[in-house]
């Protein structure tokens, strides 16, 4: 009974303070009711107070499937080092029931989103991005992986400094790209004033859609400095970027409404799974032999159909 009273008390006390931020919530957390008109009205009435109250409490759980190979594991670790607001968890068996276990794990760790690196057959890497409790979730195929450890990526930056997120303009083209952009901003953007973050900005993330894939790059910003911390005049023109890594390319496969499941909202019409590609290759190789056999039979048929004329000089020298 006491409990209930307390709750009611707090509820009674808070409305006075949190009158304005309260209507925001339905928009963010998706609890079912979406009275947009109301929300808009509220936000219009006092926009500055809402922005004051807004706090990004994003936490990302990063984990991977079992039997991941080292390259992809390193990629995952690189992501962990890039995102100070993430929590790394143990490997998860990637079976049919992984969705449920993952959801449970995320809830246990108190995270609001998840990056799940799923490795299949020791060679194909799938990346799941999911907003936790109520979706959506995206499954990507990851290509062209280069980890930060590669020596040709020569940049370096502060650990935990907030990155600038740059998106190519074609993210606004389609609904699914828009959704992906929003998810990326939430997952890869480090919350302002996160306790592990640093107050400077010395690297840029690039998300660019080329050929219906999302390409990821991470660059260090380097500007010639004077002795003091002030930048040189015209330093903006001399600004250069050095790549830090990692690099990868995300090929979206499917977007689900829920977290690790639910109805499919989007399906990539051009997607061919790597298994199918390999099968195709094999088939082509097998086709080589079939072709030879076919050619042989065709030749035989041809010889049968037009036989050689008997040579009149054949037994000329035979006596």
């Amino acid at each position, binding site marked *: 009974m006491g409990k209930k009273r307390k709750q009611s008390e707090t509820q009674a006390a808070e409305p006075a303070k949190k009158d304005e931020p309260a209507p925001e919530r339905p*928009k*963010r957390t*998706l609890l079912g009711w*979406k009275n947009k008109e109301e929300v808009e009205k509220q*936000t219009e009435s006092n926009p500055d107070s809402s*922005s004051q109250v*807004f706090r*990004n409490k994003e936490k990302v759980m990063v984990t991977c499937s079992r039997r991941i190979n080292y390259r992809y594991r390193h990629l995952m670790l690189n992501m962990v*080092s890039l995102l100070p607001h993430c929590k790394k968890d143990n490997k998860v068996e990637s079976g049919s029931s992984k969705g449920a276990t993952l959801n449970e794990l995320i809830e246990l760790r108190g995270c609001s989103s998840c990056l799940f690196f799923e490795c299949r057959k020791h060679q194909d890497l799938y990346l799941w991005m999911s907003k936790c409790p*109520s*979706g*959506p979730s995206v499954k990507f195929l990851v*290509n*062209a992986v280069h980890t*930060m*450890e590669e*020596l040709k990526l*020569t940049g*370096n930056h*502060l*650990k935990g400094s907030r990155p*600038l*997120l*740059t*998106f*190519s*303009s074609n993210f606004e083209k389609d*609904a*699914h790209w*828009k*959704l992906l952009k929003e998810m990326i*901003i939430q997952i890869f953007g480090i*919350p*302002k004033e996160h306790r592990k973050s*640093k107050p*400077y*900005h010395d690297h840029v993330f690039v998300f*660019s859609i*080329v050929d219906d*894939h999302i390409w990821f790059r991470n660059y260090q*910003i380097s*500007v010639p400095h004077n002795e003091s*911390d002030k930048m040189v005049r015209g330093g903006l023109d001399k*600004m250069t970027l050095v790549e830090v890594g990692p690099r990868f*390319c995300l090929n979206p496969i499917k*977007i689900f*409404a829920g977290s690790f499941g639910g109805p*499919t*909202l*989007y*399906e990539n*019409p*051009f997607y*061919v799974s790597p298994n*199918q*590609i390999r099968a*195709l290759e094999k088939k*082509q190789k097998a*086709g080589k032999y079939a*072709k030879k056999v076919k050619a042989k039979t065709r030749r035989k048929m041809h010889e049968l159909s037009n036989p050689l004329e008997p040579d009149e000089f054949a037994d000329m020298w035979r006596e």
Partner: protein
Amino acid sequence: MGRSSKQPTLLAEDTVEDDDVMDDLSEEESEFESDSVEEEEDVKLAEPAKNAIYNRDGLLEKLQDISWPENVDWMHKLSLDIDQEKEVDVNDDLARELAFYTQALEGTRVAFEKFQSMGLPFLRPPDYYAEMVKSDAHMQKVKGKLLAQKRQIEEAEERRKAREAKKIAKEVQAEKLKERAKQKKHEIEAVKKWRKQRQQSGFPAGGKDSELDLGFEDGKSFERSGKKRPGVSPWDRSGGKAKQAGGKGKSFNKGKKNREFRNSKFGFGGKKGLKKQNTADTTNDVRGFNGNVAGNKKRKSQAVSNNLYVFCIFNLIIVVVLMGSKNGSEMDQDYEIPVSTPSAFHKQETEVKPLQNTSEQEMNVGRVTSVHEIATEENKKGDENDCSGDNIVATDEEEEEEEEDDDELRRRVEEFIAKVNRDWRAEKLGISVSA
């Protein structure tokens, strides 16, 4: 569901492919070649699958659900939209990366301006040290790699330069040779022309007054003469190289020389006999004759020492003889004086005689000097025996002088003895007379 629907289309494609596998194979291969390694797996369907799900409303709804309030401060998002000017070709690595780079750069510029306007810190100050994404050890590795790369490039550059220089040098050399040949030809031409002109103007070519008959008119002097091996005897298989090869030249070109020498020795072409016959060359060849002084000197010094040795021996003999004779004479006299006066008389007579003819010593006849004479004769003989050196003659003369001195001494001694004897005799006579 989507996948299962995709499968049949793929299979259908496969069956189509089976009919013209060849074309497809080549196409596939070319595609794979053009792709870089990273996009190997990146194969797309040619046509979009017809029944792929696209729930636009659902997507938008979800977007609404998850998105932050619209009026959220930019500082929370830090997101920037950058226009891509043109479509980027995925397979062109350079263009693609450049597009990403420019996107990032533009984004940073915009962000920088925003930060400046808000008065917020942007880049980290140089004295702000904190943990970096990559460890120092790793950055050291990166640095090492960069340095190694730089060095490699420099080395390659150096090698390339050296190669080019060599090539140029070769060309220059060829040019020079060509130039020289050209000049030579030109000169010959000029002389010919001059000669022709001369002939035309009245000087006959073969006439006696044409003072010099230049042999290179026909250009033959620049070729080898008709004789195959000039200056080499016909039987010499080595072509005159045998002596050179045998005599010297092991130091350089060893193998070649060696071969030549062996050819000359064991035969390779040419006549086989007649090797030991004299020819003009061999007779004129004075290489075998050694005009060197060193050997003679040695021999000469040996001879001198020989002579000296002989001389010493003879001298010794003489001295011994002389000593013997003196002693004998003294003894004789000592003995004579007390014992036999008549003999002493006789002796005195004989001794006076040589005093009278000292000049003709060799003609001495006397008991006392006979021995000496024999000795001198012997000496003379010895001198005659080794009459090779002048100095020996000189010593002979000295010896003669010495002998003369000796004679003088002896004479004096004898005179003295004679005088004493006379005195003693006179005394005795006087005593005897008085007595």
